[in-house]
């Protein structure tokens, strides 16, 4: 992978002083996964170009980590890291140009302190969001941006563009700022899975972004993407199975909460926490100038208030997503509606079937009227997150005794599902393939047979209200029902398992389209 930095400063060769690298030499810097080299393809009075070339040995990259690390997957040999400007390049840049990045230059202090004419090229920059995002991130920093999408494969034009962009930046920018901006923004644009995030990433972001990040209009997106997703080690087995089935792992990720965003434009996302706010909460970690750490971090190591709130679950919309025209997020409205119905039914023991990361479980636990609360999900990953979010390890005994969390699947009968006043299927049925739904019905209504079953599911009729929504509300939804379809299903269940049902709207009940979420409350026996 390659990064070139050119200047038309007079004399242009002063770039060598600024970068602390002599224009007539080829210098090598060993990295754990290969070699970084700095050399100058051109070095004249008028124009001087420094090239940072990073030779990544994918075999060494893999072999440098143990078999139990999460990236022990096929993808690691067949990898764009040897070609693309990823976080590895950002790390190498931080290492090789450490002094320049700090803005120190004893021999040309005035040049280091002020803006100089710069041209930066990155022939293959992974850019999730396309050329448009590159413009949005670099232009506010004073760059003229030329970003061209790279086609995926000329032999298959129907495949369209790749996620790579050929990027050229031109502008009068202080060199140290330019390097810091690249250091932060390369991984942000890449937005790859961060398998090995060190606990001091927040510190690094603060320091590298000191002079420019706070004022950047996209600071929310930058912060969120930089801190990246957290992946527990437990994901390995799941990833292997995804690969085996010729599937893309992301496509199989478990659904968490998934209401459509009122707007799909990333710029419209609510601002994430200010970096300065997170800095105060983050415990001081070991400072490392060498960029992202190589080596997996135990999931516990990233556990802190600041990081927690920065965590974005796959497939989730950001906290604060609201239904159109309403003030409160739909998922919160739904949660309250379900809890309200459970109270109304006089249910004291409740099992949340498909509890995800445990939001409803947490809400029910907060109310002592619920004497026993169980949450079950098929995703071991979701349960790990739920345990962390509920702070299971430091929950007082008295509360802990009311709670049970366990892995279970709704297509297998399970004695552990039985014996509750009520069961909740909140936004769950639509994740089950229609032909498998009768199995879920047997497991819940036939075998577990609680006194009440509360089911919520999207109302497909309402989808037209989501301006940017195409298709269904979540990629893992196997279907979305109209009110009539939901009612027909509920009637069939009642008939087969001798329940009765009542329907409730959740969220603003549109006179034509109905509510965004529909709810059915089933009661065992009873009269219709």
């Amino acid at each position, binding site marked *: 992978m*390659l990064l070139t930095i050119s200047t038309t400063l007079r004399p242009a060769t002063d770039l060598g002083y600024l970068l602390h690298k002599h224009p007539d030499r080829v210098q090598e810097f060993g990295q754990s996964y290969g070699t970084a080299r700095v050399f100058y393809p*051109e070095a004249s009075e008028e124009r001087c170009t420094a090239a940072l070339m990073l030779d990544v040995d994918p075999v060494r990259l893999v072999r440098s980590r143990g078999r139990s690390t999460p990236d022990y997957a096929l993808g690691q*040999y067949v990898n764009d890291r040897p070609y*693309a400007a990823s976080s590895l390049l950002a790390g190498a840049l931080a290492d090789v140009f450490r002094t320049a990045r700090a803005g120190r230059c004893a021999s040309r202090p005035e040049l280091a302190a002020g803006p100089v004419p710069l041209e930066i090229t990155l022939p293959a920059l992974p850019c999730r969001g396309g050329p448009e995002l590159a413009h949005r991130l670099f232009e506010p920093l004073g760059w003229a941006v030329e970003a061209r999408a790279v086609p995926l494969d000329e032999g298959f034009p129907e495949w369209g563009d*790749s996620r790579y962009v050929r990027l050229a930046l031109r502008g009068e920018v202080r060199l140290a700022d330019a390097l810091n901006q690249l250091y932060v923004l390369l991984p942000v644009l890449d937005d790859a899975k961060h398998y090995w995030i060190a606990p001091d990433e927040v510190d690094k972001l603060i320091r590298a972004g000191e002079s420019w990040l706070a004022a950047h209009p996209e600071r929310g997106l930058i912060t969120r993407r930089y801190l990246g997703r957290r992946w527990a080690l437990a994901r390995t087995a799941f990833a292997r199975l995804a690969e085996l*089935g*010729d599937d893309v792992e992301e496509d199989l990720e478990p659904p968490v909460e998934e209401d459509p965003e009122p707007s799909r434009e990333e710029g419209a996302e609510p601002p994430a926490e200010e970096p300065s706010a997170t800095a105060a909460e983050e415990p001081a970690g070991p400072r490392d100038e060498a960029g992202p750490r190589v080596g997996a971090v135990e999931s516990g190591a990233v556990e802190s208030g600041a990081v927690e709130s920065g965590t974005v679950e796959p497939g989730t919309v950001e906290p604060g997503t609201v239904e159109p025209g309403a003030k409160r997020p739909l998922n919160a409205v739904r949660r309250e509606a379900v809890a309200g119905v459970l109270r109304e039914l006089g249910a004291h023991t409740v099992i949340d079937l498909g509890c995800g990361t445990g939001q409803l479980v947490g809400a029910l636990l907060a109310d002592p009227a619920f004497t026993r609360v169980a949450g079950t999900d*098929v995703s071991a990953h979701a349960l790990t997150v739920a345990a962390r979010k509920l702070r299971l390890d430091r929950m007082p005994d008295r509360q802990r005794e009311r709670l049970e969390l366990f892995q279970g699947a709704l297509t*297998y009968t399970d004695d552990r599902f039985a014996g509750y006043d009520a069961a909740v299927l909140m936004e769950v049925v639509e994740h089950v393939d229609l032909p498998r739904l009768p*199995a879920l019905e047997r497991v819940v209504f036939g075998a577990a047979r609680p006194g009440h079953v509360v089911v919520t599911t999207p109302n497909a009729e309402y989808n037209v209200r989501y301006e940017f929504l195409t298709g269904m509300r979540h990629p893992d939804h196997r279907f979305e029902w109209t009110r009539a379809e939901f009612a027909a299903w509920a009637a069939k269940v009642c008939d087969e398992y001798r329940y009765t049902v009542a329907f409730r709207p959740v969220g603003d009940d549109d006179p034509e389209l109905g509510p965004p979420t529909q709810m059915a409350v089933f009661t065992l026996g009873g009269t219709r």
Partner: protein
Amino acid sequence: MTETAVPEDGGDDLARAVPETGDPATGAAAPAATEIAVPAMSLVVLVGVSGSGKSTFARRHFAPTQVISSDFCRGLVADDENDQAATPDAFDVLHYIVRTRLRRGLLTVVDATNVQWEARRQLIDLAKSENVLVDAVVLDVPEEVAIARNEARPDRDFGPQVVRRQRKDLRRSLGKISRDGFRRVHVLRGVEQIEAAAVVTEKAWTDRRELTGPFDIIGDVHGCRAELEALLRKLGWEVTPAGASHPEGRTAVFVGDLVDRGPDTPGVLRLVMGMVAAGTALCVSGNHEQKLARALNGRKVRVAHGLQESLDQLSAEPEEFRTAALAFMDGLISHYQLDGGGLVVAHAGLKEAYHGRASGRVRSFALYGDTTGETDEYGLPVRYPWAREYRGRAMVVYGHTPVPEPEWINNTICLDTGVVFGGRLTALRYPSREIVSVPAEKVWYEPVKPFAAPGHRDPETLSIDDVRGTRHIEVRYGGGRIKVREENSAAALEIMSRFAVDPRWLVYLPPTMAPPETSRLDGHLEHPAEAFAEFAAAGVGRVVCEEKHMGSRAVAVLARTPEAAAARFGVEDGSAGAVYTRTGRPFFDDAAVIGALVDRLRSACAPLMDELGSDWLVLDCELLPWSAKAEGLIRNQYASVGAAARTALPETIAALEAAAGRGLGVGGLLDRTRRRLDNAARFRDAYARYCWPVSGLEGLRVAPFQILACEGRATAATEPHSWHLEALSRLEDPLIAPTRHVYVDLDSEESRQAATVWWEALTAEGGEGMVVKPLTAPAGPAGSTAPPGRTGASGPEGEAEPRPVEVRPGRVQPGIKVRGREYLRIIYGPDYTESLDVLRNRFLGRKRSLALREHALGLEALSRLAEGEPLWRVHEAVFAVLALESEPVDPRL
């Protein structure tokens, strides 16, 4: 000795079996050698004061592990057998151990004083909750003896008042101990009688495991004598009015409900009573016999459900017959365990925990089924579908609930086909599992509930306990048990329940396959030579090399018709097959495309089904192109890498050329980068070769290479690869891609060489490579001698003499894949040829072991399917393959 038999309400089979002997008052005058008979599966409670000799008695008559003493448990929880403060905890432990042993069906003796009613009550309750009988053995020694014994023991520091108090309790207890709830109370009085006593175990009346059949098990007769005689004759019995016998010595087993509703209850009774008396039949009690007997005994019963017919018919019979019939019905027991425990017959069925057990609860289950307490719209009791959850190894045969068709549910079957309601009288032949029936002559009795309404088949439900946690699965091929770890089960559960097809279709998942030992040949990581050498060393004489199609693995389950699918797989939604991936996912998201593919394959395979005499089959296939399934993966992973390389490397080369032009020393780097650009182009060509556009079935190819199973046969396990390839080569449809192959005689260097040349040509033109498999089918199930299905291609004459190399069954790889040099760029990355020396350092052990285990599990699943085992048994093995696939093994192997 004094012995009190305690009849129990509800009639425990064993309790009623024991005659009252002796009299408490005259017990002292007992014979010298007193024999105490306790049930083989029971709890024996010793009762006696401290120093009465309980421990000595227990040691003499029972195995050390059968005896649990309170002293021992006190020691366990307090390090001091006499620490009275630890008594409550000690009894917790004692009860836990006793409960566990009883649940497992073990004879257990409790050595504690048990002189107080409360202590005995807890043990009796415990035994009843585990449905085992409980006997008491009272050791009654004179007070002085007990006191003297205690004084002689240094560890007993309590005074004589303790013994006196205990004795007072015992005296009080003895008066009413017979009402405690023991089956029998054996009282041994005096040191002499205790010394002389002998203990024998008597087996339960339900235990007829020594009878191995063959059996003809006959469903509910309900007074339909003519149909019964017709059925017996059809089964080959010689029938007279008062008995029947079978020339081949078969035994009939009646599931009960001989009586009521029908036209000739006395005739049926006479026939069956004669057979039972002659030893040609067994009969368990039905709820109708129970009620009729109560009515005949003069008890108040509600006369309904055809009881009146029986009473009327019997009243016309001589008194003598009525008495005999009553005694017969009164003597019927709840269920029988037969054939080494492999067969259980009970009127309404019996769950596994109750097999061979005795209690009111067991009897009630056996007679009435597992009732929920609810009633349906006809006022009939709702029965809990216990059979759906049945996971026992014993076959359970029963009647009681009329069904239109007898059908297997988890190795259980109901034979009541409602002959009295105008249905049929049905028999099951055991062990052949053949169903034989005769139609009713007429509707003898109008049913309350419409009978024989079109049957909605009860879907077999899987339980989480079939797949959860750490599991050990017994397999017949390769032998032994295969362990699946909990974390792998958890990962598989997620994939299985979120993405997999209906488990009734999911009868197989393909195992992984290992590559050969790494080649040292220049430029090669894998080469046929190592594969041939390995098989030769393992004693394999001939192998087949099959072209490895580069697509996505697909398993196709095909039925001739939707009806055949319903009959064989129980899927009743009108579909007639499924095609799914290595992880059990429907092959395409679009159900219509799958439907079209299934239909096309069904018609292509129709002649093959004819040939196999099967209405269904399961095929192992590769589905082409790779991009049909994996386009997302290819674009996301492979094409992206190619795109990044093609845009980054030329600019890097340009920068290096400029630097070289300035005289900088970058020559080596420039050369290497130019080579990498070439590698990237080859990489791109490697994946692009496996991509072409597909629309619906247009452009799709299916390459089947093995017939996994068909009716009654797990052909993957029993037939050699040559059989599969030949049968599949006859499929005629442009959709079907042939699997090119060559046979290799490993003894012949030329033969090996020819195959190597073939492989080189295959891979040079971009092929993925080949799979080398031993030509013969895998070794037979553990215990079988000759491997089934020798190939015709290598007849016995052509075989070399047995080699000196010992072939350990299950250790020979079922196949070895030898992948081509260009193809491996997709696996190891575009530049892998630059670092062959490092990559050669790879470890095959885990992969090879995994391949063997998964292969054994795959064959197990198919064998279970072919033998008609219940869904959960097939699913268990299939699930295990998926779970093992989530083990961390180098994915490039």
